[in-house]
């Protein structure tokens, strides 16, 4: 692990040195591997085993005392009927919320970046760092208390008469934006900082107006960051369960809620293997998200100084 072999005397003989160094390097590599070993074993046991069990269960039948048999039935069941509607509902909700959050986050970040008040920038960035890590039960409760059926604003402004319901698709979108917009602000601010003053000046010198500058200079440079941010937000919204579970029950079909229902035995006893198949569907989509996100992030890093 260390570069220096502590047992070696400081002025070792010259001819000895290369061999010592080689031995020291070898020992260092071995020590490095040993130091990493507990982590690898832990991940293999605590993550690898459940993940493999999930994948295996998605392709097999399970009944106590009987040998399990391979089947594609779970996966095909997870992609039809109510389960398919839930998957589509999750994708639609995540895509809608992520799209709105991308636009709103860009506007907010631009407003902050071009502001002359240094304090504003610090406040927004600190708050974003906090809110982006925030989701789940307390978030759901805050919205229920404010805009739910008995919420403070709902009762005072008689929003229910106006057709408002928090427990709907758009209600959930509104809640999800609470952690997605800050996440977008954090993702896009480095890119906005990377837009150089000279580019704007060059565009203006060539007679471009503000719209043309954004259309032909700024947005193309920002595109990888914005797309990467969108994909990241999509992944966050897609995997979210607690917020929806604490809020809506089942009035909006979401794949995470369906999996939980099936696991809790609320549907039927043999639904748990379908739950595993749905989990596998989710993993496939998450892998796609990562496969899109990582190259985009690398691409956007190119413009950032």
């Amino acid at each position, binding site marked *: 692990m260390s570069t220096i072999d502590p047992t070696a005397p400081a002025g070792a003989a010259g001819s000895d040195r290369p061999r010592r160094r080689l031995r020291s390097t070898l020992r260092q590599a071995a020590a490095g591997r040993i130091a990493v070993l507990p982590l690898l074993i832990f991940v293999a046991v605590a993550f690898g085993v459940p993940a493999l069990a999930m994948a295996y269960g998605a392709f097999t039948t399970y009944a106590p005392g009987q040998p399990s048999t391979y089947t594609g039935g779970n996966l095909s069941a997870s992609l039809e009927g109510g389960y398919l509607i839930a998957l589509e509902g999750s994708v639609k909700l995540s895509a809608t919320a992520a799209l709105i959050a991308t636009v709103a986050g860009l506007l907010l970040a631009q407003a902050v970046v071009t*502001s002359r008040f240094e304090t504003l920038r610090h406040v927004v960035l600190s708050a974003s760092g906090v809110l982006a890590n925030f989701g789940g*039960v307390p978030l759901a409760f805050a919205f229920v208390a404010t805009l739910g059926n008995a919420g403070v604003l709902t009762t005072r402004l008689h929003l229910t008469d106006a057709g408002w319901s928090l427990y709907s698709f758009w209600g959930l979108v509104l809640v999800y934006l609470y952690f997605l917009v800050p996440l977008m602000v954090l993702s896009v601010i480095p890119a906005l900082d990377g837009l150089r003053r000279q580019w704007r000046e060059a565009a203006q010198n060539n007679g471009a107006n503000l719209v043309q500058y954004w259309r032909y200079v700024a947005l193309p440079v920002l595109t990888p960051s914005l797309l990467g941010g969108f994909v990241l937000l999509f992944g966050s919204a897609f995997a979210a369960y607690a917020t929806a579970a604490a809020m809506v029950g089942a009035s909006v079909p979401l794949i995470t809620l369906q999996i939980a229902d099936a696991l809790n035995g609320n549907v039927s006893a043999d639904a748990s293997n379908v739950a595993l198949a749905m989990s596998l569907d989710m993993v496939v989509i998450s892998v796609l998200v990562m496969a899109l996100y990582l190259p985009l992030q690398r691409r956007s890093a190119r413009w950032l100084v």
Partner: protein
Amino acid sequence: MAGVSSTLYDPTTTEQGRSGRRGGRSKRPRPRLGRVAILLIAGLYFIGPLAGSFMFTVDSDPVTGFSWSAYSQIFSVSGLWPALQLSLLLAAATIVLVFLLLIPTVIAIRLGTPRLRSVVEIVCMLPLVVPSIALTSGINILLRWGTDNLASTPFWDTLLAIQNAQFPVILLLAYVVMALPLAFRTLDAGMRALDVRTLLEAAQNNGAGRLRAIVFVVLPNLRGAMLNAGMLTLALVLGEFTVSSILGYTPFAVWIVNGNAAGDGPVTTAVSLVSMVLTWALLLVISVSGGRRSSAAKPA
């Protein structure tokens, strides 16, 4: 998710965008109006639910109107203390285990080969592609399989022990997995800022053994990153709902939801508001003391 590196923010790059306007034609009035509108809407949206839930908690009594009773009941409402205790216990154990696993790792990959680094990076990213609910379904099927098949084997006691309701080891394992990506990024970023090789050489030239050098020289330099990683893990465990609710345990977040369903609306909302404010204060301490952002969301 994986946004940590993209969300790092360096205050030194702030000057560019702002001074840009000086050279060009001044288009102040319109952008500024738009900016004020955007900031106002954002402010309303982000403060609204907090103000709303505060009003909800103090305004619950239809006769007397304003009342603090929801907050005074926090100390007497049943089940809160055991649930909070379980959450805090799990959080402490998770933080300890995360440190034990990750600190030797980040030191080793700082000194080791690039290949070792990429292996570790990939391993620590893996939990990101399996959403926590999918991980839960895997754990769930394993436990069911164990219950059905291990009854007459020596493993039965182990199976019961890891599901002990006083201290569910199975939750601890899941939480460590979920905390890995963020904790790794945070600790690794802290480690990269150090010249570990020189620190170790200096310590060893002064006669310290390797272990001593790491404990007394490297770790103290890493405490900022350790604080960040610890706080983020604490926030994650205190708010965790997915795994624990499905596996049937009652830590803090699950208690809040159950209590609300049982009709303790204002009290649970008050508890949730208090917990939220405390968590924010915690995270705010990090983002202010750290000076830069090392956070990415993986809402449960």
